[in-house]
């Protein structure tokens, strides 16, 4: 690629979206399943970067800044490792100019 693009930090990027966080996590990761996982597809594919691999082979996840797209459970190849539902009505992502 020919030109350098001065990109914004990921934190600033996520700060452009509005999230109405509910106290209940709508994503649950069963870390036992993640220990045997070598692909770690959720880590690279989640557009909100919610999945962080830990040194002991598990996955730490956040749910607060979730776009509710569904990519994580779609790309996950460990059956049932990611349980994903919609957040409580009225909560979660609120798009403005999309």
């Amino acid at each position: 690629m020919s030109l350098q693009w001065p990109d914004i930090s990921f934190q600033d990027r996520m700060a452009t979206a509005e999230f109405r966080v509910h106290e209940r996590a709508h994503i649950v990761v069963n870390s036992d399943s993640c220990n045997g996982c070598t692909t770690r597809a959720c880590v690279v594919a989640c557009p909100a970067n919610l999945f962080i691999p830990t040194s002991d082979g598990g996955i730490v996840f956040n749910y607060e800044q979730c776009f509710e797209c569904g990519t994580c459970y779609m790309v996950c190849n460990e059956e049932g490792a990611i349980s994903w539902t919609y957040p409580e009505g009225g909560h979660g992502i609120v798009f403005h100019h999309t």
Partner: protein
Amino acid sequence: MPDFDVIVVGAGPAGSCAALTIARTGKSVALIERGPFPGSKNMYGGVVYPRILDALIPEWWNEMPVQRWVTRRSTMLLTDTQSLSIDFRSDAWGDAPYNGATAFRPDFDNWLANKAVEAGATLVCSTTVTGLITNANGAVIGIHTDRPDGDLTASVVIACDGVNSFLAKEHGMYPHTDAAHFTLGVKETITLSKDIIDERFAVRGNQGVDIEILGGTSGVNGGGFIYTNLDSLSVGVVLKLPKLAAQSKRPEEIIAGLKSHSAIAPLVEGGTVSEYSAHLIPEAGLKMMPTLLDDGLLVAGDAAAMCLAAGIWLEGVNFAMASGMYAAQAACEAIEKGNTSAKGLSLYKKLLEDTFVLRDHRKLRRAPQLVLSDRVQHMYPALITSVVQGMFHVNNPLPKPGLRKILKDERRRLGIRTIDLAKDAITGFRSFG
């Protein structure tokens, strides 16, 4: 007696057109939306083709919240160092009755839902539907929601609950879901002044531009797009899920890569990212479509994979609106006849088959796979751009080579087999011809 004649789940374009159609017949209809307002959960590339609204809202263009009317369409091929554009402009698209428009979904969907409310639909926001209520025979008779005392019953439920459609999945309408059938769309809304956009994209007033890009996605199968809003750009990429998962570049890095391409950077630079967003797209067309109806249940819009991702045609909102409208017509007819079984609702299937909704999908059933194939994604852009470069590169004192020779040399250099080229050409011709 059920609480409502029809419950529509999801106030997107499919759900709102369904609710509007039902409310106009005088039947009671509840439109349930999980976001705080219709459109708040919805994101797309940026262009809507509302022709189908002629049937529901005459002269919709006078009231629809539009950013710009698309009067220029570009299809762009990108390699790392080259770009090739086919650019088309039509003044007719800038006047009534118009063709396509850029619009923001929180504006558009909210407007459409309010049309349904004006017609008499009951809109309930901030309410997530958590499941279907079925009777002893397995027929759908209502919904569970996440509110206290949250059950609601109806003669027919229309599931317009989006690409993840938990309702259709729960009810077994999807025999299997394959990640390969989905792409992830990520985009940046980039604020730029109207004057700068007018100048860079060579448009005036409320004219807009739609640029579809093949290549520029860091080797992940998919595509890119740039759409002009009034004083912002929608810039993003669409990425095939298994390919995204199998490499190491994150979605926002892939957008950054596209934005730094020498053909793209001059269009977007200096702008401020005012919103970052993401959404899944059902890309596989007919191949992934679920069962569309069952006793007491109809599925429409993204929930039924009614999204056309066929390279040069990228449409979804129009398919959603039409399928929602047809589902509503079928539901009304079934209720009037007193038979809301799958058989009683079968008009839905017929209306879809008779119109563009399924006819376009049937004609283009091979297109999504072709467009997202490795050859179309990686080899043909390189082949075409290098052939064009060979044609226009002046290499004096050597004489100009013939087009056939360039094509042959480049094909050999890139290792593209004649048989594959012929096969893809036939598939392409059968789809697009």
